[in-house]
């Protein structure tokens, strides 16, 4: 029983983090049609901003939301500087990969210069530990498991219930028509990037609370988020969320039964098998759009 709840809990926890990361990637892909390779660096940057604000003496309750808001600004700036000028170019997908990779390298080395290579840690959301179903867990992890679905639900209702969210979905579905009905497409591109960057920053803050942070901490979560979006289908928001939890459970089970070293290889096999059977992802509908 303990083994099962161990895997269940670990999967839930990892899945939450992957979902936060993957949703941002999918949001940017559906609206702008580009892939943001500096997404992992955003995660790192959010954690470091939060750390810096806490180091300034701000209480966690103010510092963490403030860092998330600052990340929205950072996402907007990145979009305006290295993505927006390229829109309309024939090879935009490839060129944006290189510009976001370069921007990621710039930010990562900038963080290294500013904050140094020494590992840092953020305060937990909630201090303390508890035991549930025979598994010892920290309250910080429980908080993440509870908060993540709430945030994702909020994002979902924003995209489905508000005018702004609907506008974002309209751009994702048909850019030309959005122009025709008078939507400010450029601003909506910025918004998509801002939301994605905030979510990545929040994931970074969550991660910094239980693991040491360093400037290259975003690389592995980015890779996992890539696997998640391919697995779940990149053309929606709900697909990657389900996929994130599935991958989380799979990883937890595989870590337990096959060991830490073979898990990435197995994940990759699952990915290839998925792509050969359903290249559009297992939860994807055939059309491109947010929902």
């Amino acid at each position: 029983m303990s083994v099962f709840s161990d895997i269940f809990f670990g999967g839930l926890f990892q899945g939450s983090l992957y979902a936060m990361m993957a949703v941002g990637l999918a949001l940017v892909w559906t609206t702008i049609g580009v892939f943001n390779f500096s997404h992992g660096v955003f995660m790192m940057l959010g954690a470091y901003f939060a750390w810096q604000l806490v180091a300034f003496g701000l209480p966690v309750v103010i510092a963490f939301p403030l860092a998330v808001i600052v990340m929205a600004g950072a996402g907007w700036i990145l979009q305006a500087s290295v993505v927006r000028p390229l829109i309309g170019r024939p090879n935009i997908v490839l060129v944006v990969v290189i510009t976001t990779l370069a921007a990621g390298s710039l930010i990562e080395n900038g963080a290294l210069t500013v904050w140094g290579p020494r590992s840092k840690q953020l305060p937990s959301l909630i201090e303390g530990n508890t035991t549930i179903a025979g598994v010892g867990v920290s309250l910080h992890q429980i908080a993440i498991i509870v908060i993540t679905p709430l945030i994702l639900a909020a994002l979902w209702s924003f995209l489905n219930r508000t005018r702004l969210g609907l506008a974002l979905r309209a751009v994702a579905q048909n850019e030309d028509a959005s122009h025709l009905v008078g939507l400010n497409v450029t601003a909506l591109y910025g918004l998509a990037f801002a939301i994605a960057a905030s979510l990545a920053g929040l994931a970074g803050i969550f991660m910094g609370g239980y693991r040491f942070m360093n400037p290259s901490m975003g690389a592995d979560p980015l890779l996992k988020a890539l696997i998640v979006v391919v697995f779940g289908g990149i053309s929606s928001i709900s697909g990657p969320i389900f996929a994130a939890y599935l991958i989380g459970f799979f990883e937890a089970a595989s870590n337990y039964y096959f060991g830490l070293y073979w898990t990435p290889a197995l994940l990759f096999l699952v990915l290839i098998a998925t792509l050969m059977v359903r290249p559009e992802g297992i939860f994807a509908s055939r059309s491109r759009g947010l929902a």
Partner: protein
Amino acid sequence: MTLLNVAIPAAPGRVTWNREAIGFVAGFLLLALLPLVFGDSYSRHVLIMIFIYAVVASNWDLSLGYGGVFNFGHLALFGIGVYTYSLLAKLAGVDPWIALVAGGVIATLAAVLVTIPILRLKGIYIILVTFGFAQLVMQVIVSQSDLTGGTQGLVRVPGLYIFDHNMIRDGKIAYFYIALALLVLSTLFLRLFVRSRAGASIVALRDNEEYAISRGVSLVRQRMVTLAASAFFTGIAGAFYAAYQRNASIDVFGMSLATIILSMVLLGGTATIYGAIVASFVLTVFSEAMADFGAWRLMISALLIIVIMLVYPSGLVGMIRAAWTAVADRIKRPA
């Protein structure tokens, strides 16, 4: 391979065989004379690194620029060359020259293997799968630390040899010419390939897939041929890199090397082969010139890449062409 032998007829705007051959020989003769100018071993080391990068970048240009296949696992093929050579030459005691060729062969096989899942995929999905493939190769190497040394890497990898010639105390002259020979062979192969019918068919697939297929071009076969062709010299370059550095480390799988090589391809201008080689010179020399800047070097390089991509999307070749046209116009019609 019969497709390779039939030359395509001359087309407007296409440099003829003769003119390209003259340029090719002249260009590489110039490179061969460089050791006369650069006598110190540091300059020669930089030149050797340029040649290695040029091989990797120009081969990437084959799959990326000509084939339009966004293969982000290209550096993994290089890494496979590094580790194939190191493991064979160090642990299995295989002759270094045979291990060098084996690096290319194994990389080619790996490329065929990674092509299978991407045969049905397009665009961004190919990026994701090949990116994942590169990470997988790295994870496997790290996990087999008994053999590969894991994150520590392998040291004291045997170098190459030429009879009794002392490869270490010759001012790097032998390695220089081996690297140059590698670049010459690789470039010759790539140019022959892209000028052949097979080359034309992969460009056709890139530009209009449906039409190319309807004219009888096999997507599956050509994609496999493209990736396998781009892998062979990449793997040999990796093996040579290991022989020259005399060690193997997982740094070759890192994002920073991939970013630098990719910017060489894009900076040079895709689908030119020569552009990637020129860009390898420019970027490596630029990067070495800033060696004193430490962490700032990577940041300045990244900034430079972004600026060039924003201002000159067609790369250095596009920049040179634009400048050339401007000059030519001035000469033709004096104001």
